[in-house]
């Protein structure tokens, strides 16, 4: 996302979203482009006929069904659409050439240039990347994956047919991973979450070798050590190896290709994440039953959260971590081992400013939405809001909201927000 090229000059742009409701039979929940220039929604234009309205303009093509309307990170408007019993992907109103019996689970690369979907065609399953389906298809497919650079697709695929009651055949291994359409040479009892090395040469996945032996397999070759459970692997950009949380003797620990990475085990440990420079490693952990925290490089924060920690994010310089927390039935934000005083009915993933000094997030309270930044609440209540976006130099914030039926794209100097 090159946000520098966005319009940061115009202080406010509006679209009369409410008017759409008079124009169409019904209007579904809207989505807004990352740059805030477009608001779009699936609209019903007649019995069994749907289209997409963007900034008040209806797309020319209509379909019997449309769902999963989403903007790619680079601002293209995508949806899954069906006509005459066939499904396809539409991008800015243009349908892919390929048609399928069904498509689902659209995935976008970080830059938005790649779009992948899972498809089913005449009972066979595969993935399609940028309108190019896998040549090889399979009898079933789950856990689809697209690499962050958009170059590689992968999924768990069924290699051997087994009746539901053929439990021992299943336990001998019927599942593998297909990477860019080609299956690994080895089957497993199960294959789940995946990760890819930065050069794209290696794909790792959680696998179950027997009903009891879990490990990570890289390009189909399992680690030597097995565990009573594992969670999904993550690529370590500095070591070039894969890490994963593993469970042993009732505790969770972090290992790198079988070698202990963090000395201290935890009651729970998941969502490990490297900082952008790869130098720091954070994970959501439970230090003991019902007591949640964040561990940085193996050391847990002092705070303990009772209900949930989610949406962990590193600052661009990799020195700070923010998370969404839920405690005593209220949602909030914790940054660097400190919980903000404001609580909400819901909090979305925090966003760091490019200079690492500010943190903002979309929040909900009493059915209305607003933005919180550095634990101070923007004194506007909105009917809808999207994640705030910082200007690359950090002095401006882009707010995307709906107030009184009007979509507003606002550019606000950070210093002016709270007076």
């Amino acid at each position, binding site marked *: 996302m090159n946000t520098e090229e966005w319009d940061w000059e115009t202080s406010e742009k509006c679209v009369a979203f409410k008017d759409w409701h008079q124009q169409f*039979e*019904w209007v579904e929940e809207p989505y807004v482009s990352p740059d805030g220039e477009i608001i779009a929604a699936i609209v019903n234009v007649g019995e069994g006929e749907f289209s997409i309205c963007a900034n008040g303009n209806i797309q020319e093509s209509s379909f019997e069904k449309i769902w999963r309307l989403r903007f790619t990170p680079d601002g293209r408007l995508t949806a899954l659409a069906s006509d005459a019993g066939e499904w396809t992907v539409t991008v800015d109103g243009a349908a892919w050439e390929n048609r399928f019996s069904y498509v*689902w689970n659209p995935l976008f690369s970080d830059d938005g240039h790649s779009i992948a979907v899972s498809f089913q065609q005449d009972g066979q399953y595969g993935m399609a990347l940028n309108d190019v389906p896998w040549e090889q298809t399979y009898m079933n497919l789950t856990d689809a994956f697209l690499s962050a650079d958009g170059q590689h697709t992968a999924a768990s695929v069924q290699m051997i047919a087994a009746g539901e009651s053929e439990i021992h055949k299943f336990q001998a291994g019927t599942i593998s991973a297909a990477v860019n359409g080609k299956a690994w040479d080895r089957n497993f009892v199960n294959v789940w979450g995946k990760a890819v090395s930065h050069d794209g040469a290696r794909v790792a996945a959680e696998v179950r070798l027997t009903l*009891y032996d879990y490990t990570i397999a890289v390009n189909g070759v399992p680690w030597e050590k097995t565990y009573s459970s594992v969670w999904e692997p993550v690529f370590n950009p500095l070591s070039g190896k894969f890490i994963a949380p593993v469970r042993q*003797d009732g505790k969770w620990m972090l290992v790198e290709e079988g070698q202990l990475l963090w000395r201290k085990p935890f009651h729970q440990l998941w969502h490990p994440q490297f900082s952008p420079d790869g130098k720091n490693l954070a994970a959501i952990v439970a230090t003991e039953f019902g007591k949640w925290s964040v561990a940085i490089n193996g050391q847990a924060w002092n705070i303990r959260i009772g209900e949930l920690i989610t949406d962990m994010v590193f600052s661009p310089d990799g020195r700070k971590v923010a998370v969404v927390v839920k405690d005593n039935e209220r949602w909030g934000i914790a940054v660097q081992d400190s919980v903000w005083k404001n609580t909400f009915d819901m909090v979305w993933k925090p966003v760091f400013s490019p200079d690492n000094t500010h943190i903002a997030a979309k929040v909900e309270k009493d059915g209305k939405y607003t933005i919180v930044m550095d634990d101070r609440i923007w004194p506007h209540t909105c009917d809808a809001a999207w994640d705030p976006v910082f200007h690359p130099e950090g002095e401006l914030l882009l707010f995307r909201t709906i107030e009184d039926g009007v979509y507003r794209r606002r550019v606000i100097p950070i210093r002016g927000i709270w007076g």
Partner: protein
Amino acid sequence: MDNMAAKPDETILDEGIEKGAALLTDERIEKTILRVLNTEGGARIKVYVDTCVHCGLCAEACHYYLSHDNDPRFSPAGKVRQTLGEMIARKGKVDREFMKKAAEIAATQCNLCKRCAMYCPFGIDVAYLMSVVRRITHLLGMTPQYIQATAHSHSVSMNQMWVREDEWPDTLQWQEEEARSEMPKLRIPLEKEGADIMYSVIGPEPKFQAQLLYQAAILMNAAGVNWTMPATPGWDNSDMAMFTGDSELMGRIKRQHFETAARLKVKKIVMGECGHAFRSVYDTGNRWLGWKIPPIPIVHAIEFYYDLIKEGRIKIAQKYAEPVTLHDPCNVVRGGGLHEKARYVIRAICDNLIEMHPNREHNYCCCAGGGVINCGPPYKMARINGNRVKAEQLFAVKARGARTLIAPCHNCHSGLEDINHYYGLEMNVKFIGDILYQVMEKPE
């Protein structure tokens, strides 16, 4: 009756148990038992087993015992004695024939209903002890075939019924289209981030009972609920791994369910009329992962209906006229305390509720729950014979006028259908949602 059904005391040859047992050695059995007793069970097991004074109060609480003419082999204490008690007494030195019988008792002669725990003067939780036996048999690879197959489905598809990833949203879209013939602007909003509620169901609904999804969609739309359903795995709240003793898989399933809700930024998960799934998301599965309480609040359908009716969001056009009785499901009543809310709902939608006895937290189990019905056709008659007392209870309430039997739990529903059919009760077995859909006002 099913040809595969066995007589009550006939030895049932189950491929899952037999093939698993054939691979066992005495050493593996001993090592596995001691591992579970020493590292997973700990003091709790020892305290329970040492505390039991064999007073027999648990026996009268068990529907298997009552249905088998007070045969002590079917009493809860008797079942512990035949399984875990022996394993402890013999320090794990038991043979494969013993383990085969233990597997059958734990998996198919106890519904983990916890009625006995309520009557035990010491509060000994026999359901927990039977779960320990199931854990041991899981680790020994001798879980009954049908429920093991269901656990395999969970492991691949994250749902109970091998519903494929495309089949799930496709089914919801089909039901949405069907329901639009009744409510033209109805929606089943998929992947609507920030909705108030994520509605989750169990695998059989899209597989065999799509009308329940239809009815739920009508209800949600009529009540103006801001809701969504995930289009990804994580939509199924059920959990047979919890009942096979595969705790690791149970945790994986529950993590996906709760993280799906967290991803969708919903404030609550409302679940359909299922009992075991409630136990899994409200008690067992979440806790295995380290969540003391569900990280996203869980609202069972009974409580959800209660709120909608109490708040006036659903209006009743005309109450259901046929006299009804209510079966209190173990997991949501003994386990969740929803019995009075269920009665509030039923009185709001039905003219005449006739109580069966015993009722509320004292109700007899359906004999299907705890994974027993999921052990499949080989055990069907053992299950039906094991709940003669339920049939007697239902005949008694039928004699007082009840014609419709409400069972707000999927396993109860299926198990009671079998009781109903086999014993010739001729009652109409319904979910609350069936009746609510029938009697509610539906906007055009």
